[in-house]
């Protein structure tokens, strides 16, 4: 019987996952190296992946402690810092000063540093939660399709094909513009966030669903499943105790790859004006507003652009590292 991975399910954040994996691995160090332990050893040697992981942890901390780090109200106007003729910040580099580390926004004079810090909340919230939605849906439906086969498989697979062909960006744009302003006790930005998370997650599950289904198809024929079955194990037991633990590796890999995509989708939606609502700040929305000033105030465009770039890069590097660590035989 192959030893199942002793890692928490993918619902937990990757940072927590590695720690848990480490803890789990140490506890059983005497008994020889588990798969998780081996993966961790490999990951430790991958400096790029570690750097990415550290940036991710840092970002999560920034988002959590935004009010402390920003030090000021991201929505407060500072008109006195704006040149009324052009609407651009006074001073060099978009109004960089001791009070405003990244300068201020054109027209309103809001502090860019504070808005970037608060914007991290939106990006990470949407990135993580929509990935969670996708993982839960994708895992459950994928494993069912792979395990039961027959009409269940056909139905789930066709739905996945359909969703993959669906123009999700256009759909979200259309959906958001007809969304009520109040829903389920949420208002304004709350509604938008809820809808974005749900929809991005919903359109993301087939990617995980396909992988899980494929893995399940091959795993269900393995001897240890056969053994469990012949010992009289029920279907549910086989699904969740025998198959699921062996699917954790691919799920984690795909989750870490999906989060940056979701962050980009959120940025794109905010860029197009259907993301969060003002005055809530979001990187995509800042980038969109910066277009009018790319020449007169380039700093305003550079800052949110870099924020998105660094975040997505960090997640991708980390995700790549995790994939290589868990599946060294994979293509690369």
């Amino acid at each position: 019987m192959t030893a199942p991975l002793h890692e928490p399910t993918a619902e937990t954040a990757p940072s927590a996952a590695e720690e848990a994996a480490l803890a789990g691995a140490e506890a059983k160090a005497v008994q020889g190296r588990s798969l998780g332990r081996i993966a961790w050893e490999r990951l430790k040697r991958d400096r790029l992946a570690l750097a990415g992981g550290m940036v991710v942890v840092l970002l999560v901390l920034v988002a959590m402690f935004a009010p402390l780090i920003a030090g000021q109200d991201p929505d407060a106007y500072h008109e006195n810092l704006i040149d009324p003729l052009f609407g651009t910040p006074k001073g060099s580099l978009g109004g960089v000063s001791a009070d405003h580390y990244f300068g201020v926004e054109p027209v309103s004079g809001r502090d860019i540093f504070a808005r970037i810090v608060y914007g991290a909340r939106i990006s990470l919230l949407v990135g993580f939660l929509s990935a969670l939605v996708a993982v839960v849906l994708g895992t459950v439906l994928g494993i069912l399709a792979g395990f039961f086969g027959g009409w269940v498989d056909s139905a789930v697979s066709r739905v996945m094909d359909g969703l993959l062909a669906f123009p999700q960006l256009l759909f979200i744009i259309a959906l958001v513009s007809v969304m009520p302003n109040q829903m389920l006790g949420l208002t304004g930005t709350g509604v938008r966030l809820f809808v974005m998370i749900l929809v991005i997650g919903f359109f993301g599950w087939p990617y995980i669903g396909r992988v899980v289904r494929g893995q399940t198809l091959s795993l269900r024929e393995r001897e240890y499943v056969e053994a469990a079955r012949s010992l009289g194990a029920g279907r549910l037991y086989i699904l969740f105790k025998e198959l699921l633990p062996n699917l954790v590796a691919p799920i984690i890999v795909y989750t870490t790859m999906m989060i940056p995509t979701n962050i980009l989708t959120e940025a794109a939606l905010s860029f197009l004006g259907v993301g969060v609502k003002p005055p809530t700040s979001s990187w995509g929305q800042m980038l969109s507003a910066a277009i009018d000033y790319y020449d007169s105030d380039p700093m305003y465009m550079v800052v949110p652009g870099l924020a998105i770039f660094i975040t997505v890069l960090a997640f991708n590097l980390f995700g790549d590292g995790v994939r290589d660590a868990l599946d060294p035989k994979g293509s690369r």
Partner: protein
Amino acid sequence: MTTQRTSGRRKQAMAATAVVAALLTTAACGGGGKDDNSGSKTGAAGFDAANNKVAQASLVKKGGELKFAASQDADSWDTTRGYYGFMWNFSRYYSRQLVTYKPEPGKAGAQITPDLATGLAKVSDDGKTYTYTLRDGATWEDGKPITSQDIKYGIERVWAQDVLSGGPIYLKDVLDPKGEYKGPYKDTSKDHLGLKAIETPDAKTIIFKLPAANSDFEYMLGLTSASPVRQDKDTKSKYGLKPFSSGPYKFESYDPGKDLVLVRNTAWKAASDPIRKAYPDKISIKFFTNANDLDSRLIAGDYDLDIGQTGLQAQGRATALKEHKANVDNPTSGYIRYAVFPQSVKPFDNIHCRNAVIYGADHVSLQTARGGPVAGGDIGTNMLPPSVPGSEGQKYDPYQLATANKNGNVAKAKEELKACGQPNGFKTTIAVRNNRPTEVATATSLQASLKKVGIDADIDQYDGSQTSGIIGSPSNVKKKGYGIIIMGWGADFSSVQGFGLPLWDSKYILQSGNNNFGLIKDKAIDGLFDQYNTTLDDAGKAKIATDINHKVMEGGYYLPFVFEKYINWRSNRLANVYTTDGYSGVYDFVNLGLKSTK
């Protein structure tokens, strides 16, 4: 009478229109000569050199190609269907009317002057009958004379709204308020000239008989939709692709959304036309899809001017003001940008709550959001645009928005909140079009300053192309709780009726396509509008306009943001350039000329 159209399309039209005004009526000398000093012979005329005065009139050379650039095509080039301001302005190249705007800078440019007619109308004492005699020598592009029947037929086309939708319908509302006439295409009379309100006793005489007096009627006859159309050349819904010319230029080619070229109409005789100078040999429009691209081509000198005349984008504006200041003018537009408070949404039924918002807002911040004092405009202090007769401009400032309270008066706002019974503030929703970044910026500014007085405003960005169904529906406004609506408005013609009737008269509260967003039901205001229709002298009309404006401001229905201004580009090649209030402060296209024919 007149209903100002209010569809999304119209809003677009108004946006596409630039605008006007005439703060300083430095009684521009129509001639020229003098103003040329500020610029070089081959270079630009100087900053604001063509704003309300004529720049470089003496440098005009006949001939050459005048090149317009456009960020979007007109709604239609059909004289009956066009509603975009630039289309009205441009249509004078290929279309004439009985009367039109004077080809003069500033305020004078908004006055009506005879075109096809020999003089202004002979108006009967009761103000209900208008008689015109036609000028000799005016012809169509095939050389046949323009007759009174052609004019009547052209006006009748306004009734065919099922086929020719989109244009203004003032004439239809005034001449046939009950809608008895069915339009020329459903007209069973032999000559299709069945409209009873217009009589054409002979080819040179045309008589209009109004069921009720309207002192702005002649303005309506000056609209492009009152142009003559020849029956045998009427291609109905396809007419806009190639209108049959009555002016100095005719259509050579038109590829919608790509380009349009006009060439000289050889049948047109200068002697028959007191308005049009017809300097260039050829006039072209190139349509762009990206406004920033258009700006950079203008600044590079590839084109002479932007047909839209809505001002340069932020990027081009900065470049132009820093490096080519002599190439721009900064006219005031006839637009007012404002917030309005629907009285159906609590607590805005109470004037003190409305006042709290007016006092709480930071007017300088709102002005900056609109683009600042140069590109955005002066702080708006009342609801009558400076170009409309009867306006007092910033001198009438009942809330001291441009002076003492320009950064918001928190103490006064809190006082008003107490008087309103909401001492701790309240929650409300700001409705704003999602396709207007500057409007969203003003909403965000308002939200930030209202937060300081305890008013918690949520911003709802609705689909800007659905304006008439969303904020134009009072029941929807109430359902959604839109306490503050952000909008802008410009006049179709320069009078208090052309600007304010749809906004302030209780008869204009509509179930759909409403523009009286404040749901103003004030008998005094309604009465003043009725009185206006029968007042024929200009001084009397201006006085009523002033009174209406005061009543509206005293009601606290509106928070004006700016009397809008634009930064418009003119190339080094242009000569005889001036802005006119007739077309909302933009350049008068019809008499533009070039300094060099190359």
